[in-house]
């Protein structure tokens, strides 16, 4: 570790992993509620468990992004963090605010939470993924602004690299688009239209910038490939992400009462959205193939390749599967959406955060890479989580296809609840895969505590016969 203040990232990563565990535990509860409808009812109804599951995901990914920025920005900018104390302060504020919000979801009925937090003054609650009380949302904005100020000042007063500039753009975009969460008009169509400015322009827009820059950073470190080459790839990937993704928002405007031109605009541009993910896979494969050194941290390389492939699979392929308006007419709001959501979030954002954790954690603990035994355990956790997520996705896809057929496509359509009983077998299998995911996660945590001999870098030999 070159700069003292990079170690602040450790705090953020530990919190991220802790919240990740919480997210998965609630995921397992939700999976069980799908088959045993009254499980934990009425103490923890489905909507509460789901809110905890999705909000924990968002919060721990934000912790992950912030930790990643605190780790890589000082090194890239070649200076200490602008205000390390601010980063630590914001960590505790964010953690306490996040924990209180989750406890609020669990301990009091949601309507009571809305009342205590005086939602009527500025109503923002009760919309999917934006369920946080208004006061928490304001807290998030404060934390994000302090964070961006800190990171921004470090970047702008230090060495500027393409990676840090792209990261900063992504983070500023994240903060700006979050502001739309405060706009909650009475008109349902307007509400929905601008709700997507947060949700879509985050995950299919600016978050892709963050993801690509984190991936590029780790790949430079573990492969030793020339920065010029990596930066060219980075630019073209994020160019494609925004060119396809901005108008691609239209694929959410098909059935909410928006004008008809969104049908084809949304279809055409969102059909291009797999391209940046496709290129990310090509990019990761290419630079790993042309690596100029064999970094001792094999696990980090595996995560980097894994996130590229799984993002392509989850966000790219499974997104394309139901993005064209004529298909989406039948699949909109079915388990197909759930299948896509699970693999896309895992492949693109969970895995990229785990990539940077895998690369940076050993360094912050004073070694170049975790010991060989720990890495083997970590790689086992990689495969268990990744393969079980593929199966979760496949089972939900199966459930979704059957649901579409029985409830939407058939000439004699069944009711929603009757259909749900018909697809129960898939929900059981999904729950099984979910438990294996949990085992993988436990193994992941264990990997941090496995003892063994340190692995050293075997001389950063640059092979001469590289064709550029």
């Amino acid at each position: 570790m070159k700069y003292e203040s990079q170690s602040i990232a450790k705090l953020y990563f530990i919190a991220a992993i802790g919240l990740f565990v919480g997210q998965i535990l609630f995921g397992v509860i939700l999976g069980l509620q799908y088959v045993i409808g009254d499980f934990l009812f009425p103490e923890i109804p489905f909507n509460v468990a789901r809110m905890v599951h999705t909000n924990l995901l968002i919060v721990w990914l934000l912790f992950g992004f912030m930790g990643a920025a605190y780790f890589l920005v000082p090194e890239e900018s070649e200076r200490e963090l602008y205000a390390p104390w601010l980063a630590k302060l914001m960590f505790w504020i964010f953690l306490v605010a996040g924990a209180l919000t989750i406890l609020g979801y669990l301990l009091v009925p949601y309507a009571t939470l809305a009342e205590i937090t005086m939602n009527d003054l500025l109503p923002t609650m009760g919309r999917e993924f934006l369920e946080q009380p208004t006061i928490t949302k304001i807290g998030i904005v404060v934390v994000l602004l302090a964070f961006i100020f800190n990171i921004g000042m470090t970047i702008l007063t230090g060495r500027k690299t393409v990676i840090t500039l792209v990261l900063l753009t992504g983070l500023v975009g994240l903060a700006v688009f979050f502001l739309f969460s405060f706009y909650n008009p009475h008109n349902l169509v307007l509400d929905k239209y601008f709700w997507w400015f947060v949700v879509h322009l985050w995950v299919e827009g600016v978050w892709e910038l963050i993801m690509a820059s984190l991936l590029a950073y780790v790949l430079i470190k573990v492969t030793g490939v020339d920065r010029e080459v990596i930066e060219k790839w980075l630019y073209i990937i994020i160019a494609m992400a925004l060119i396809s993704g901005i108008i691609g928002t239209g694929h959410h405007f098909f059935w909410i009462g928006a004008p008809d031109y969104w049908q084809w605009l949304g279809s055409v541009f969102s059909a291009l959205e797999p391209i940046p993910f496709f290129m990310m896979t090509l990019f990761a494969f290419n630079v790993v193939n042309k690596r100029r050194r064999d970094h001792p941290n094999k696990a980090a390389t595996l995560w980097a390749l894994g996130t590229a492939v799984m993002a392509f699979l989850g966000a790219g392929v499974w997104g394309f599967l139901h993005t064209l308006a004529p298909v989406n007419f039948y699949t909109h709001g079915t388990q197909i959406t759930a299948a896509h959501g699970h693999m896309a979030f895992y492949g693109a954002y969970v895995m990229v955060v785990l990539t940077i954790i895998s690369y940076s954690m050993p360094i912050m603990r004073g070694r170049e890479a975790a010991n060989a035994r720990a890495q083997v355990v970590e790689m086992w956790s990689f495969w268990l989580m990744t393969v079980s997520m593929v199966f979760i996705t496949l089972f939900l896809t199966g459930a979704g296809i059957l649901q579409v057929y029985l409830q939407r496509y058939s000439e004699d359509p069944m009711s929603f609840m009757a259909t749900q009983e018909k697809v129960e077998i898939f929900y059981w299998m999904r729950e099984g895969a979910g438990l294996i995911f949990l085992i993988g996660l436990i193994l992941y945590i264990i990997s941090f505590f496995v003892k063994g001999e340190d692995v050293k870098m075997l001389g950063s030999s640059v092979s001469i016969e590289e064709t550029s």
Partner: protein
Amino acid sequence: MKSVKTDELQIKRASDAALASLLNLTILPVISFIALLLIHRKTQADTIDHYHAVLGVKINVIAAVVLFLVSALMILLGGFDSPWTWVYVISYFTIVHTIFIVFALWALVRAWSGDRLWS
């Protein structure tokens, strides 16, 4: 990594072959396969471009059989009007198709560096 320095033209042709193979699997089927066959005719045995042209043809022929034949069998055996047929066909086709694409991507990257698949 690689032992023999391969000449530029061969690497270029190997890259073209691998790209044609990838395109045939994705946005430009059939036409790309014809292009791949034309590239294959220009190559000589035991060269890297020949290797990648043959690999591309193999990937695509196997993919065609595995994707279309098996899917067709599923539809034939399961019946066109059974929802379960479509559960299997769509899930199967999507995941297996993607595996072939990822494989072809790796082949392309190896062709760019003038290597065989594994060395």
